[in-house]
């Protein structure tokens, strides 16, 4: 009698609960974002020689950047976004002994998002203004924003991207620091923050229970595109790096260069699924 009573009471509850759940069960898939770098289509590696302009080679030692406000957009014009990440740090400074790692790229994160079809991919290059008002003191040691090497105390800003290396200005096959052949572009401050929305030809489809890999390929050479004549006296649409070999955000001329280089992230970036 007792058993029958229990069954009679629990059965409707079970039916009711199973009826409630199905329509509201969230359907999600994983999205993984992987950043890779190339130099004019060739795998980007630090400590490797590339041609910057004819008769002048370039070699990199550091290439990194903050990415932020990454989200998937349902419609081209809509604000219906699925945020993937607020801020993260991408380090693509793999050297010539780390080729396989460079080919794999730097996986920034994997996140679950509602399954469905997305038309747009939004990405910010740098640290957005609200976060740029904070400082490494505000974060624990494991946080990407806790890194003091990417913070300018005098300018109250994070360094959004570092591009460092050497150019062989005299084309003698040697990168000589004593002859000032090093370059250091440290790009930061609110003014240089750049956002882009990419609309791939095929929609980004996140399927229920599946993992979607999105590759963001950055052509490092394109970061040096220079439409401003003052900084392109060779008229080759590239920054005259032998003259303008650094930007650190605290002088007007350098800030103009920094703005352009950060703006170049937009056209230097391709999305691949």
């Amino acid at each position, binding site marked *: 009698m007792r058993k029958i009573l229990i069954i009679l009471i629990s059965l409707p509850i079970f039916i009711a609960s199973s009826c409630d759940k199905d329509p509201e069960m969230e359907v999600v898939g994983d999205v993984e974002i992987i950043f890779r770098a190339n130099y004019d289509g060739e795998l980007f590696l630090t400590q490797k020689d590339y041609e910057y302009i004819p008769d002048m080679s370039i070699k990199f030692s550091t290439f990194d950047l903050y990415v932020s406000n990454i989200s998937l957009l349902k419609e081209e014009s809509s604000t219906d976004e699925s945020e993937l990440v607020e801020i993260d740090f991408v380090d693509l400074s793999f050297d010539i002994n780390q080729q396989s790692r460079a080919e794999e790229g730097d996986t920034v994160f994997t996140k679950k998002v509602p399954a469905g079809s997305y038309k747009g991919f939004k990405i910010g290059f740098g640290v957005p203004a609200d976060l740029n008002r904070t400082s490494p003191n505000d974060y624990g040691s494991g946080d990407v924003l806790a890194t003091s*090497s990417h913070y300018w*105390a005098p300018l109250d800003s994070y360094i959004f991207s570092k591009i460092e290396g050497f150019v062989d200005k005299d084309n003698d096959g040697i990168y000589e620091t004593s002859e000032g052949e090093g370059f250091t572009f440290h790009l930061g401050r609110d003014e240089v923050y750049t956002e882009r929305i990419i609309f791939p030809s095929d929609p980004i489809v996140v399927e229920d229970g599946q993992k979607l890999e999105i590759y963001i390929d950055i052509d490092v050479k394109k970061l040096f595109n220079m439409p401003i004549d003052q900084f392109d006296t060779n008229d080759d649409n590239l920054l005259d790096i032998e003259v303008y070999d650094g930007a650190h955000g605290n002088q007007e001329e350098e800030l103009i260069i920094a703005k352009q280089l950060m703006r170049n992230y937009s056209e230097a970036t391709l999305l691949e699924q």
Partner: protein
Amino acid sequence: MRRLYLFFFAFGLILSACGDDEGVTPDDDGMPGDLSDIPYDPVAYNLVVPEGYPQMEIPSDNPLTVDGVELGRHLFYDPILSADSTMSCASCHAPSGSFTDQLAVSVGIDGIAGRRSSMSLLNIGYVYEGLFWDGRSSTLEEQALLPVEDPIEMHNQWPNVVDKFKEHENYPTMFRKAFGIESRSEITKELAAKAIAQFERTLVSSGQSKYEQVRNVPGIFFTPEEQEGFELFIFEENEHPGCTHCHKTFNQMFTDHRFLNNGIEDLGGCDVEHLNNFPDIGLGEVTGNIFDYGKFRVPTLLNIAHTGPYMHDGRFETLEEVLDHYSSGGFCAPNLDPNIQPFPMSIEERDAIITFLHTLTDTVFMNNPAHQNPFE
């Protein structure tokens, strides 16, 4: 037969009663070992950091306690850690030198010179990874274990040291108070390292250097020469690349904790194969990557006027030599930090930078009684 059992039982009872009189239970070696009668009431250590400093991250498995820090201070200054009881941690990290030995390279108990200069321990608790010049230890607890068994440092073995702790008049009680152990047999090298790490985390700036007073106290200013030096140090003008690329003023730490090749070594050439010519490969020893050869930790500049000779091998006696090196642009190498670039610097400018560097001197820290040798 039953009487015989009774006899042995009674004899045993008498023996144990004798032991009880002393209030402790013998350990295997026959020494009194039970420490449970000693009160264990850990009190959190109140770590005060100056204005503008971040809160230090303390490992959850080694919180700072008053007794833990005190034990650590004793162990730090106690030469029984070394094989011949002549050398303590403080032999290479003395407060008068901002916890360095002010030698080009440190010398161990056998009179053998090491290959590197002792690093200042000022604000060492803020280093969360990559300790030592080459970054081979991840935590202070790991780091503290190594010098004892290093054959050119203390040249000892931890079991010997732990035995000395167990037999010591005071240490068993201090370990009990610091960590709540029940018996001397529970004293381990790991607990000793934890205690030393606790003490080291208290080695924080006082906030009383001239530089910090100028920043934080209204009405205190740099002299004109200090101001000129500060501006040369911090800004990238007149082709000066800026010292703050690596010696970040943020957090008042004057380091960014990275590992770099700063171009001090003439490798005889600029190609990749020349990287093999580094006499000390630094970080490369840890990672095995040839492009890490010759990279060393960027040290803090706080108390820099008291921590010479300079560089990982103490090759520069004076700050003048250091600045001359940097203005030269250093020697080429594939992995040279590109921020090391030649820049013009007059004698007056060099003097001004050095005058500024002297404002980073924190004598209050060096003279802090809480940091001194408890045996004196």
